[in-house]
């Protein structure tokens, strides 16, 4: 007996798309992309566990019919702020760590954001850009208007970096993305302060936002994106189906941070990909603290000679959270470097899956590729899976991978307690130490501090 794929139905349907298209300020070509994606969506069922990318993801309790576009928030609703924005704007980070203090960290005061974009339940609620940057040709804000105004710069990349038809969630996102943001930095323009994008949802809310970042030749920028809100486990929860596209131009330099910080009732599906051109540099940090279930694809394609990508992952899970990451470091050109380090700490009955692949094309000689996943188990009931992989067609390359899984040692805790640290303080310190290696790679101190503090606040007493 053969089973035909049953299309998954939700309130993201043709009528909903008509409503979006009648209200959008976007250009016709962008609307056409949505229609194509809807056609694809209506033919697709939810991803199947026979698909290798989804075989460790349990979608049985995910009900697509529960989700659809949400109405705009009441006018007085304050925009979500976000953990990273708070860290940049309001914290004096002075003297949190000895090494930072020695390095002059005592002088670090509250920082600035060059641009701020916020959405709530798929509706734009804040959009600001430093006027001096706008004058230099920097484009930042709501995608609908900006795609129409800057089609020449944005159209070649909009939904061209990620594949909008590869599965139900990708097609759903491509058809129904809302409150999406774009950043375009013209060649040679360097932005010192970070730009910030936060997607918020209410309890039971929905977010389908998309982010496109394009850096022209020799441009530099720091982009912080994060999520906030949603319901906790057991309640209405929430649903995120998003995408991130990144284009790092020749010799450009991008520091990108994606922090997933939903409450623990939120379903999170995200497809994220960066393309790095010749001599471009990308430092890409993924933080994951929240959600009920996450399925994230994070791909980096090195398409020009001499490009480099450093990928950092900081994951902390608890309760019954289940986070799945599929990463790809795709070396398409020669002399490129990619270095991935994912670190996860697991508490409760949570589960963390990392499946990583380094793919080296025939042309990509002198590739230097590295991937590593370390997990720290904070309970006996947590489970971590690390599945590294290499697929190499060139013959002159250096590609290595590693994975470790360890536990907090009761003797370490006793040693710290014997010096006056409480059990909780000792546990937090040991876990902070575990993450230090990846924190050392994140060159934005406020991001480091915000992640460290958020993780520290969630560690229960160990043993």
């Amino acid at each position, binding site marked *: 007996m053969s089973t035909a794929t049953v299309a998954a139905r939700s309130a993201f349907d043709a009528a909903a798309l008509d409503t979006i298209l009648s209200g959008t300020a976007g250009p016709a070509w962008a609307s056409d992309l949505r229609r194509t994606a809807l056609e694809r969506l209506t033919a697709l069922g939810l991803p199947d566990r026979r698909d290798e990318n989804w075989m460790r993801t349990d979608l049985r309790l995910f009900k697509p019919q529960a989700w659809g576009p949400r109405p705009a928030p009441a006018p007085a609703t304050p925009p979500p702020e976000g953990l990273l924005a708070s860290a940049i704007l309001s914290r004096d980070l002075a003297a949190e*760590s000895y*090494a930072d203090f020695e390095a002059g960290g005592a002088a670090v005061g509250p920082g600035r954001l060059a641009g701020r974009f916020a959405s709530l339940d798929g509706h734009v609620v804040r959009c600001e850009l430093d006027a001096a940057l706008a004058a230099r040709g920097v484009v930042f804000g709501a995608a609908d208007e900006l795609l129409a105004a800057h089609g020449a710069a944005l159209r070649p990349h909009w939904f061209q970096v990620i594949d909008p038809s590869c599965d139900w969630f990708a097609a759903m996102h491509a058809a129904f993305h809302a409150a999406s943001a774009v950043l375009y930095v013209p060649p040679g323009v360097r932005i010192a302060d970070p730009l910030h994008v936060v997607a918020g949802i209410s309890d039971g809310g929905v977010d389908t936002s998309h982010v496109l970042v394009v850096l022209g030749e020799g441009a530099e920028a720091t982009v912080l994106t994060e999520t906030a809100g949603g319901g906790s486990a057991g309640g209405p929860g929430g649903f995120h189906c998003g995408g991130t596209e990144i284009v790092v131009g020749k010799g450009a330099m991008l520091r990108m941070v994606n922090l997933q910080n939903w409450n623990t009732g939120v379903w999170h599906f995200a497809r994220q990909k960066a393309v790095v051109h010749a001599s471009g540099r990308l430092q890409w940090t993924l933080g994951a603290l929240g959600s009920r279930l996450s399925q994230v694809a994070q791909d980096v394609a090195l398409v020009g000679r001499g490009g480099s990508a450093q990928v950092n992952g900081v994951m902390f899970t608890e309760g019954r959270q289940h986070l799945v990451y599929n990463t790809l470091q795709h070396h398409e050109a020669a002399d490129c470097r990619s270095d991935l380090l994912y670190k996860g700490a697991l508490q409760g009955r949570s589960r963390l899956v990392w499946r990583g692949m380094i793919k080296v094309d025939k042309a990509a000689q002198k590739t230097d590729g590295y991937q590593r996943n370390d997990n720290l188990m904070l309970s006996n009931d947590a489970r971590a899976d690390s599945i590294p992989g290499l697929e190499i067609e060139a013959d002159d390359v250096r590609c290595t991978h590693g994975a470790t899984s360890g536990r907090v040692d009761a003797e370490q805790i006793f040693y*710290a307690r*014997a010096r006056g640290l409480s059990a909780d303080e000792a546990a937090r310190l040991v876990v902070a*130490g575990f993450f230090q290696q990846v924190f050392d790679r994140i060159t934005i101190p406020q991001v480091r501090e915000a992640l460290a503090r958020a993780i520290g606040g969630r560690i229960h007493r160990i043993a």
Partner: protein
Amino acid sequence: MPSATEQLVIKGLHVSVEGQEILKGVDLTIGRGEVHALMGPNGSGKSTLGYAIMGHPSYEVTAGSVELVGADGSRRDLLAMEPDERARAGVFLAFQRPMSIPGVRLADFLRHAVTNVRNPDRKEGQELMPMRDFRNELKAKMSELSMDTEFARRYVNDGFSGGEMKRAEILQLAMLRPKFAVLDETDSGLDADAVRLASESIARIGGADMGILIITHHEQLLEHNIPLKTHVMLGGRIVESGGPELAQELHKRGYERIRSAYPEAAAAEKALEESSRAAAV
């Protein structure tokens, strides 16, 4: 009888590890400002005493007491305290084998420790000692102990040589300034010069307000720390106490005289050795 100074008073202490009794009734009183040496063959229970005083969860006290007795006669029951409360009450253990904590710089670790020990009621999350003050003090102490200040930036005991670990323990002793310190073989794994340096350092750190119990196999560590009393442990008991000359005798002649003088303790030592050998098989 009230004493002129605060004392660490251990009475009739019995301690078991995994159901096996290691200490079989230890009595020991140390006053602040006194140095005591604790010697004895391997496996006699010296380290167990250190762990029990500090409150290691695997060391079960089945009988006896460990108290801090104030000059005014007030008593604080150490055994009722968690290990960190004991540290905050002024008790310190220099570990024979210190644990490494990768990713945590010695300076950051010590700043937490110093803050807590000096503010015993501090709750986690409350302010740490100001970094500037802490750093000044740390640098001064390191310079006194002839330590490179770069050492403070290294991760706690991570990749340290045996000697570096022991020096890090001494630095912590110097910064925490406990009322009572147990130094568990702070000389093991060190060469002669390093032991001399350790001995000098401990003498400099100690003084009229610190009671120190030095666990050692050698007399060299005692060179600058002349013990008021030397205690010999055998088979889980302190079988003999004497002056500094006892340490010299044991160092020169070993434990044969002790074993023959205390056949019951020697038999206990043997029984323990055999059962631990059986457990290892």
